[in-house]
């Protein structure tokens, strides 16, 4: 009982450190399991995965596939933001348009898009266009919803006050509407980025004859967990980095909301 409470005390004083310790413990468990308990055809210890990241990247064509994926994600993201903003603003700024089209947008958002992935591939081929398109359809809905929500919450008194001080339409858009919707715009962008990544990765994994899906398929069939885990780790790190970057941007533009 006593030792438990001291551990708890330690955890209380150093939450960051405890998190690191927990992550380290997980890695150690994985290491032990992979070394002593699980067939090495199925699992590879983290030390080896880490050590062989270089060899993974050295796999012929893999860096190109990664670069291509990154390119697909970027293009899909830019397109999702552009289209999402146009749709979001035109639906959000007009009461009637919102009433008409929000139900349709929500309905479309609710569709399990994965079932139409084969259609995208049939229509657009196995190259970047289908993956970009699938990324766009996944990323666009959170962006539209965030923009519609962002445009709506503006307090009328701010508009009246701006107008009473002589603000022009441009002034109001630039100094009132835009800054008001920036935070929700950025959180929409972050969710959109998550969606785009999911869409692109789904399409990449689905197409097994090229890109990331080819390599995951290859490593799986060769029972090469080291390289499979290496590739997955690289992609996961990429996803985390993109997500953290969006979060940073979001925080930067919502400073006025908090106290720092």
């Amino acid at each position, binding site marked *: 009982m006593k030792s438990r409470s001291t551990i708890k005390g330690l955890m209380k004083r150093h939450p960051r450190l405890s998190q690191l310790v927990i992550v380290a413990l997980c890695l150690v468990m994985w290491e032990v399991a992979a070394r002593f308990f699980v067939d090495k055809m199925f699992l590879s210890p983290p030390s080896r995965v880490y050590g062989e990241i270089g060899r993974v990247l050295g796999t012929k064509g893999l860096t190109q596939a990664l670069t291509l994926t990154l390119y697909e994600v970027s293009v899909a993201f830019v397109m999702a933001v552009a289209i999402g903003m146009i749709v979001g603003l035109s639906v959000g700024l007009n009461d009637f348009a919102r009433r008409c089209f929000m139900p349709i947008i929500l309905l479309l958002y609710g569709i399990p898009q994965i079932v139409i992935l084969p259609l995208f591939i049939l229509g657009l081929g196995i190259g970047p266009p289908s993956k970009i398109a699938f990324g766009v359809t996944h990323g666009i809905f959170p962006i539209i919803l965030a923009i519609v929500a962002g445009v709506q919450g503006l*307090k009328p008194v*701010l508009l*009246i*006050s*701006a107008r009473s*001080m*002589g603000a022009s339409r441009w002034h109001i858009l630039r100094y009132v509407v835009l800054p008001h919707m*920036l935070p929700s715009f950025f959180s929409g962008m972050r969710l959109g980025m998550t969606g785009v990544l999911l869409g692109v990765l789904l399409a990449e994994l689905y197409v097994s004859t090229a890109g990331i899906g080819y390599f995951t398929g290859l490593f799986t069939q060769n029972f090469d967990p080291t390289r499979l885990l290496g590739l997955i780790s690289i992609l996961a790190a990429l996803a985390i980095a993109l997500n953290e970057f969006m979060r940073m941007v979001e925080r930067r533009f919502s400073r*006025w909301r908090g106290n720092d």
Partner: protein
Amino acid sequence: MSASPALTNKQDVCVHIQNVSHSFGVEGQPKHVRALLDTTMDIHRGELLALIGPSGCGKSTLLNVIGGILNPTTGTASVNGKSVDGPMPHDIAYVFQENALFPWNTIIENIRLGMLFQGVPKADHEGRAREALQAVGLSEFADHYPAQLSGGMRQRAALARALSLDTPVVLMDEPFGALDEQTRMVLGEDLSALLSRTGKTIIFVTHSLGEAVFLADRIAVFTARPGRIKEVIPVEEPHPRKASFMTSDKFNGLRNRLFDLLHDEIRKTVSLTSGSSGGF
């Protein structure tokens, strides 16, 4: 300072209201409300006029008509001889009841933005903004965001923004309505001192009898809805007014008179609202 300008300068009309009536909604429908009924009044230059009355009596409506935010159903308002048909940023500055500072801008950015909207040359922004902050005692908080300030400080900042616009007329819609009693008192004192220096024409809406007596040169008392001006009470007391005025017999006398005038009207609104339950 001179005594009440309302007495010395009767001829100099700054704001003129002529037969103003206003209704909300379409006639014949249940949401139709007659807020203001045939009101005519002159407000003199440099005068501080308080509008007081039961809730929904149309005092804010009248303020918005003067400010050009609301087009009255009938009648006209004119400011400095110009008839009002929209916001007049060079003549009128507004302090709203709610916090109307832009939350994403710091205090000084808010003030500069007002001048940008109004069209003040950029070179003057900084100096005038600092001056206005100084006047309300917020110099040290120039770079804070509104969310970081207390309610009282936010209303001071809003006041600074209105002052920086350098308009002859300032309209205030329950500027201290959301604040606690102690803060209101201190702000009221400061406001009295500040406004006696600037010589602006001020029209402000309030619920507080004490605030009206303490700040105003004249008090317009409204009837219950549909609102009309029931009586205009002069407060003959020079600005700046000290806290000691609040405990004087004169203050209490005026306050009691206001109370009597309002009491019946407030009764009327209360019975009105409880009678038409579901109407709101």
